[in-house]
């Protein structure tokens, strides 16, 4: 299962991108996008921004605050998109691409990984045909924990007086990238 993670400023400028794969159940932590998929991923994420803007204000007539975690908001082909909005309206978008059983699993050694797929805990039924369900509570929980970790590192990045997200400064710190990768390995 491959993931493509982007942080976008309130003016839709990408500030940070990172792609990785799942480290669970025989995943090797590397992304396995086909080149055409990999090129398409940023477009899919940007098209999901419209939905983010609609959903981020929360169900109307609530108490006046909305959660930061917007859960699963969009689906394109077989890619699922989840979102987290920070207090300053910076968006974290995560594109999840469950491995196609048909493809047989490009990287898992031994071929039997392809049948099971890599599920972040939300396993349904045995054998081939385990379907990835983005709104399973376990999956949502895993993605939420990932986002919470990245958010903490993000707040530390923003507190830098020389860093201005509004300007579209790209985050270049290798330490930040290492933190995101560590959170990904831990929860996804």
């Amino acid at each position: 299962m491959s993931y493509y993670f982007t942080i976008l400023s309130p003016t839709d400028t990408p500030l940070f991108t990172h792609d990785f794969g799942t480290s669970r159940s025989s995943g090797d932590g590397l992304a396995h996008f086909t080149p055409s998929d990999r090129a398409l991923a940023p477009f899919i994420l940007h098209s999901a921004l419209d939905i983010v803007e609609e959903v981020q204000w929360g169900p109307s007539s609530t108490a006046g605050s909305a959660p930061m975690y917007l859960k699963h908001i969009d689906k394109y082909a077989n890619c699922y998109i989840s979102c987290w909005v920070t207090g300053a309206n910076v968006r974290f978008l995560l594109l999840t691409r469950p491995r196609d059983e048909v493809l047989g699993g490009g990287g898992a050694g031994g071929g039997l990984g392809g049948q099971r797929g890599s599920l972040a805990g939300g396993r349904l039924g045995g054998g081939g045909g385990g379907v990835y369900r983005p709104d399973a509570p376990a999956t949502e929980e895993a993605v939420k924990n990932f986002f919470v970790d990245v958010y903490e590192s993000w707040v530390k990045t923003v507190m830098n007086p020389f860093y201005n997200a509004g300007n579209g400064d790209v985050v270049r710190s290798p330490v930040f990238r290492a933190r995101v990768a560590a959170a990904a390995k831990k929860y996804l």
Partner: protein
Amino acid sequence: MSNNAPQGGGLRYPSNKKTIYDRNLNRSKNAELSRAAFAYLFIEMINLAQKHAKDVGDLEKRLNNQGYPIGQRLLDLLLTRSANPLASIRPTRILTLLQFIAQTLYRHLFGRPADALERSNEDPAQYLLFDNEPIVNTYISLPREMSNLNCAAFVAGIIEGVCDHAGFATEGVTAHSVGNQDEGGKDAKGQAMWPGKTVFLIKFKKEVLEREEILGRG
């Protein structure tokens, strides 16, 4: 300067290999700053602004600009430190946002909440936040030719930063002194009960009000 950067690329690490990412966000949660230290810095900030400013309005604008990025950063930081961190919520309505400013932000900056919050009668887009005695003005005395200057423009900049980045774009947040007005019957003895009383006028943009109305209708 003898450390090798562990990851190459010219990045240097301090000798205990700890980066800013290793510091806990809540570490300075209860930290306090001495008023004298702040006043010392603030006076220099005003001097810097005054050097390049042409008139009082420009000076207030420069102070406002100095406070703006602080507001941007405080918004995320205070939301992270909010009472129930797992809930992770952000304000989506104007009233919630203003209460966040009057209570949480003010308590963080000055140790006490703001004194009053009102909606202006003439202009529905305008909200008034009252502060009886802004701490930033403690050691400031104004010469006669600049008597309409209010250095709480710095705090107004902080508020503007918070509002803008929370998604509630403002036309501007300005600070006005209302200390010397007659209270009109409420306090017959002396007008100047709070001589330094300041009101922050927060004017939201039209789109914000439209959205507010749509959300309110549900």
